[in-house]
């Protein structure tokens, strides 16, 4: 068969978001325009003695207020519960019927798929730790699996066990939308939902689907998740000032702030969007994906993989680095990421690097791990829509080594036509998406 890999243009026709700054797209966006923070003391569990006592939680969230079928989703993990609402919001904007067995939107469900970057659900903490405590024989340094199984069988919930599987958020999205087209879920650490979005776009471009629900779901705000990141010394421990703790690109940055959320974007072939009369919010024109193949613990010191991903996305879009108006960075507020990401931008954008505004919304919403890329892609669409760049908050003491235009502390008006979203993940995962203001 001929190589005909660009046969369909892909546009965005719906957005949905639940994150620490709000339960819908416009609330989150307004918060970013106001430079608000979604970060505060952790309440999901008692983190008062942990090295990091704060996080970016989705607050006062009740899925039952957003779904017609709360019973169907009653066992969903936190990530699933967020992406269910985000999906309903995105589909509603795009004119796709949800939560019905008899949709009247004229969309062939076998040509509507799902691609999420989604994380695992939390263990049932109390039972999980109690079972270990009961079964551990400290003298002989071994587990008594019989005792452990007894506690497990009497106290663990089968559905909670099932809902820990990372494919479950996609399962809930399928139940909400009736999607019967190509469906996948991936988990490439902090780059997952950008990778999911890129691959979802490719599914439409290659003709496998007309519509894809792309996005992500994740929450690692639980004792084991925070333990893992604290032990890696990846989290900020600025416990006396949670709201200023996420300070990407500043000299005093000391780690990221763990967050959670759910994000959904409706991707659609241009033909389908036109046929349905859907409002087109932006066009996705490029995607690049690479691996560092360097170390599981560190990013490549010269940003080799990140630069390759940026260049691949530019090539895929058929544009050059001079065409980019804004970069939404991964900008985690860790020492390593922010300096290597700056290196990557300099490597790919050469003489233009210092002229392109770049910012990190993680300064406000925290780092949503698997779902962060899709949440940030949504902010890119809104930046294009409103011709405004969301700020990097808490940037009061710039790192002298980092000398790009980070759009510090307040949003900035700008004529935006093409913007880039970057995501990088543990293990050396690099994913980049380019979107463009839609013109026919």
């Amino acid at each position, binding site marked *: 068969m001929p190589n005909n890999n660009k046969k369909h243009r892909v546009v965005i026709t719906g957005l949905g978001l639940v994150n620490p700054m709000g339960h819908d797209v416009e609330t989150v966006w307004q918060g970013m325009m106001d430079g608000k923070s979604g970060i505060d003391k952790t309440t999901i569990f008692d*983190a008062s003695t942990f090295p990091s006592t704060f996080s970016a939680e989705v607050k006062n969230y009740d899925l039952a207020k957003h779904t017609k079928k709360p019973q169907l989703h009653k066992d969903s993990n936190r990530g699933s519960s967020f992406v269910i609402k985000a999906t309903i919001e995105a589909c509603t904007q795009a004119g796709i019927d949800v939560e019905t067995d008899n949709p009247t939107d004229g969309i062939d469900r076998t040509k509507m798929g799902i691609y999420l970057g989604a994380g695992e659900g939390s263990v049932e903490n109390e039972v999980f730790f109690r079972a270990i405590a009961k079964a551990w024989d*400290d003298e002989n340094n071994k587990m008594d699996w019989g005792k452990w*199984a007894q506690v497990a069988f009497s106290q663990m919930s*089968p559905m909670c066990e099932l809902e820990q599987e990372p*494919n479950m958020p*996609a399962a809930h999205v399928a139940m909400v939308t009736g999607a019967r087209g190509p469906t996948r879920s991936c988990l490439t650490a902090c780059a997952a939902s950008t990778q999911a979005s890129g*691959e979802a776009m490719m599914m439409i471009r290659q003709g496998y689907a007309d519509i894809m629900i792309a996005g992500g779901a994740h929450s690692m705000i639980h004792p084991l998740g925070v333990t893992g990141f604290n032990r890696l010394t990846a989290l900020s421990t600025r416990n006396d000032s949670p709201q200023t703790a996420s300070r990407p690109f500043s000299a005093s940055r000391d780690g990221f702030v763990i967050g959670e959320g759910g994000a959904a974007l409706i991707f659609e072939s241009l033909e389908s969007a036109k046929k349905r009369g859907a409002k087109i919010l932006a066009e996705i024109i490029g995607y690049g994906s690479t*691996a560092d*193949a360097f170390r599981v613990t560190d990013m490549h010191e010269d940003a080799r993989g990140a630069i390759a991903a940026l260049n691949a996305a530019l090539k895929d879009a058929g544009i050059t680095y001079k065409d980019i108006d804004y970069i939404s960075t991964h900008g985690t507020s860790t020492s390593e990421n922010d300096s290597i990401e700056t290196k990557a931008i300099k490597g790919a954008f050469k003489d233009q690097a210092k002229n392109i505004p770049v910012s990190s919304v993680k300064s406000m919403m925290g780092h949503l791990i698997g779902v962060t890329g899709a949440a940030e892609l949504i902010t890119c669409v809104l930046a294009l829509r409103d011709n405004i760049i969301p700020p990097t908050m808490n940037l009061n003491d710039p790192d002298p080594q980092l000398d790009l235009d980070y759009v510090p502390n307040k949003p900035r008006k700008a004529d935006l036509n093409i913007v880039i979203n970057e995501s990088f993940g543990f293990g050396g*995962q690099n994913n980049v998406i380019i979107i463009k203001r839609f013109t026919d």
Partner: protein
Amino acid sequence: MTGRRVVITGFGAISPLGMTADDLWIGLSQGKSGIDKIKAFDPVNFTCKIAGEIPDFKIRDFIPKSFRKSTKLMSRDIEIAIIAAKEAIESSGLITKGIDPENINVDPTRFAINIGAGLISCDLVELAPAVAKSLTDGEFDLKKWGRDGLNAVTPLWLLKYLPNMLPCHVGIIHDIQGPSNTITCAEAGAHLAIAEAAQIIARNDADIALAGGVEAKVNPVVMIRQCLTKRTTDQNNDNPTSACRPFDADAKGSVFGEAGAMLVLEEARHAKDRNAKIFAEITGTGSSNNINPAYENLETDGTGIRIAIEQALNEAGISADELDLIIPHGTGIAADDKAEAAAIEAVLGSAVSKVPVWPTKSMVSNTGAAAGAVDMVAAICAMENKMIPAAINCENKAHWCNLNIPTSQQNADIKYVLSCSYTYGGQTAAIVLKKFDS
């Protein structure tokens, strides 16, 4: 495929039937079962005490010396991925950094990796000493954990359990710098990962890809999950080899296990230019969802599976009756097997009496995210050997099953094979392989 042609030039498998793809095929063709009493831990009080376990191995024997330090960061899933990947690459004739750094014959930037991976459960024995430091009057105390227990957890602990560490470790050893993805769709993961890798080559984002699936399910945390959700048989602990009975009237549930299987996918011209042996071509992929309010099981008519199979046949440009073999998911969970049988029958129509449907989990066990890749290797071996082995543990087909399940070994000139899978939650997948025709 839509775009460039994608062929298979290498494969590897490590499974309860042995350490290599050859072992897998010999076991399958002799009707051997790799299921036995669990050895990895004492399953006392578990409702299911049997599983498919890989023979003993030492990961140090499978990695270059310079990587030995990193074995400390490897969960069992990662180790299995490394072993399967090594065999696959060696069988393809490609020379990577991990095979021989002096004679590399691949472009690392045109090399992709895509693995279907499971939810890697943490090693409780590793966590337990930290938990023991966090007790107040014998009960777990989260405040103490935050203060004391947490610091007893090894600093890089989390990195052992991120699913993307499978392709990352393999990618570091073999220097794979192209697109790297980890599909986490449970039992449908391997097929979906292979399909995506094929699409990446077809659309010209890579020339070579290592793709497959890996999961190590035989540990207390995963096995208790299967017991709690009642997906395991609890009635066959004394008869391990006959315990897993896909499509059989006496099926009592699945038996879980561990495996890893990887394929080397390659753009057809790239393979021909280096005179590689080409085993088969991937000509069709499909994927959909089962949608069922009781989503731990499938919808009874298997609609989501049917759609995936139809898509794959459609992309391959063939009709169902052209298939020479179907390798189904066939878990031994009667309700799910019934739904899958209904889907396959709906697609095959009158050809249902003719096309052989050969389930493998009776022998290999249900290896979760590895399952689809194990079946892809089995499909290639059947093609190569021109032979469809007999199914085992299906002496009395269930009354609802009209599939043609081979009860004796048959010679067959196989041109097209379809392999499919599905998972709890709902994702489904199907792939069509075609004997390579240059």
